């Protein structure tokens, strides 16, 4: 169960330096930073709305749009790049018909890339809903995406 904004803000009100920590929790618990959340955070911490947006835009950890039910994160780190991250990105872009950072129209998948996930020894790495998939190949990524789609169609899918 996601913590409410009130719970997240508890003990942090009127402390502008808590901005990033608060936004991290909102992002984590609510999946994105809604306009209402940003207004509330701004007022509670005493940080101008413009500054909250500036911070939210600066750091890649934050998104201003809701994300899909399943989040696919493709690592673009050096080790993954050298061992073939590009074909994986192409595979996912082609299969899902979205751009990097975008969500499919049916809200099922969000496709994200990350600078480095820190599992470089087993590159290339793809993360699906927080679960790492090492030594990935385009064929295995395709199977993974199709499995999620099939489970969703059969009603057995879970994020």
């Amino acid at each position, binding site marked *: 169960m996601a913590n409410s904004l009130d719970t997240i803000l508890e003990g942090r009100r009127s402390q502008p330096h808590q901005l990033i920590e608060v936004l991290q929790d909102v992002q984590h618990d609510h999946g994105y930073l809604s306009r209402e959340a940003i207004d509330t955070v701004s007022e509670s911490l005493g940080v101008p709305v413009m500054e909250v947006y500036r911070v939210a835009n600066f750091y890649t950890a934050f998104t201003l749009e809701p994300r899909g039910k399943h989040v696919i994160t493709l690592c673009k780190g050096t080790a*993954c790049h050298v061992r073939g991250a*590009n074909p994986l990105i192409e595979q996912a872009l082609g299969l899902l018909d979205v751009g990097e950072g975008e969500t499919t129209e049916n809200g099922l998948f969000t496709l994200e890339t990350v600078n480095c996930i820190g599992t470089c*020894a087993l590159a290339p790495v793809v993360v699906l809903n927080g679960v790492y998939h090492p030594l990935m190949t385009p064929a295995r990524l395709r199977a993974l995406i199709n499995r999620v789609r099939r489970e969703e169609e059969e009603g057995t899918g879970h994020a």
Partner: protein
Amino acid sequence: MPKIASFAELKAFGEQITADRDNEAILMTVCGGPGCQATRCHEVAAELRKELDSTSLNGKARLRVTGCHGFCEQGPIVVIDPSNIFYGQVKPADVKEIVDRTVRKGEVVERLLYVDPSTGKTVLTESEIPFYKAQTPTLLSQNRRVDPWSMEDYLAIGGYAALARVLAEIDPEKVISRIEASGLRGRGGGGFPTAAKWAACRAAHGEEKYVICNADEGDPGAFMDRGVLEGNPHSVLEGMIIGAWAIGANEGYIYVRNEYPMAVEHAKQAINQAREYGFLGEDILGSGMSFDIQVARGGGAFVCGESTALMASLEGKVGEPRPKDVHTVEHGLWNRPTTLNNVETWANVPAIINNGAAWFAGMGTDNSKGTKILALTGEVKNTGLVEVAFGTPIRTVVEEIGGGGRNGRAVKAVQTGGPSGGCLPESMFDLPVDFDVLWEKGSMIGSGGLVVMDENTCMVDIAKYFLKFLQDESCGKCVPCRIGVDRLLEIVTDITEGRGRPEQIELLKELGETVAQTALCGLGKTAPNPVLSTLRYFAEEYEAHINENRCPAGVCTELVEYSIDARTCNGCGACLKACPYAAIQGRKDKLHTIDLELCTKCGICLTTCNDNAVVVQ
């Protein structure tokens, strides 16, 4: 647990733990590092736990899940002590046999032993594996001796003894002079002498001072700080507390990447434990010192690895660096004196106090002392975290520890130091791992990333990769980095897409040198390194792109064409199914062809075909 109030109490407690533990018992250690987690080591550990609980082995065998052992390629890893038997790539289904045969009867399960690819022979024990043999285990090797969740494990290996000694008998100035004598330099990339930072911060005026642990580790291809903080968080805390004593700080922060949730969790729980035991909080070990640490999560901005940007981020602001003429040791976090070191630097401190400065200074070269943890990745057989003494030749790391190139391909280069570093050709592999030597050669040891590249890697593409990375990550505050990197990328992109002109080589050099001289922060100043180092050592690859419209590695898509070799294709249809753009046609068992109109040259068919029938020209 009652608080430990003195050096004597800590000593007695540590001895009690050691005595309580039956040294004769069999200890099964499962590596729980990020690599092994990715290969589902937790399932192996759960199965082992179940097997131990269900048999009569309770009390005779113990299970310990630890942080990263380093040999990620072989994960999941189970080591059985005291015999030191090493099992690699263990599956949950193997567990019953391990318990029945190795734990109960002392037999070896041959098929799980490591096979040395260079000799084809099986290796029985962990210590005999070439990957480990050529290393200098000091810091990372502690990981396998502690469960990161267990304070008792850390105390059993002498944890917090250095802190207790410092508080009982070593003045802050003497702590700093010991660190100075050890020659410890910052492991985060800059290589600044740690003691000089501490001394300046101690001398700075101010009631409130801070220590910060930089665990942002934003360099792609680097994961050693994650290995240390996740695997042995108390060693980092102990180093920070000793540092705080030395400079006179009361508050500390660990700034961790949000991409490392396990590091965040382990750091937080270690802090809670340290508070319970009285190593953090008021009157630490009866010394009168008060100090506490908080964890802050980074927001995923590369620039926040830079000290002034990190401090801005800790203040809840956008992570923009500021000019370095105002020193953070005097005006750092909230404008107060601040000492910032990275994870590996802090974790080295307790060992220096325990073993003496001379021990530390006895390892390494004239100006680079101790050991360095490297993240060995890329096109090399044995990937993972390795720890070597400074001065170890790159060749030893790549060939002896790494086992050489993968898939029979020749190694061409290593990229060291992440986006601030550079690429060194195979002909220079006899150079030692050393702060100053690599810098003179146009690269740097940086935080320790070492990515191995072979003939399938295009060095111009690598330069483009880093420039793209730096363009995305430039905070945009200063013109040289914001616009200079942009232009560098534009030119390199021209070259990779067949629009290169010979005069652009000189332009790249001139522009690169200008950015290096004029950018505001360390990241901007080093941003041209990847392009300058590849120009220096791989000029012929740039020339092939410019003069012959040819990418020798077959990577730059605008310069290559894909086709299917009619003699090799067996019509299996694998590439047809794999192509996300429906660019491949053909019937079962008949020759397949690529429609060049639809082909995006993504390379998926190339990785899919089992018969090497896809040709890149």
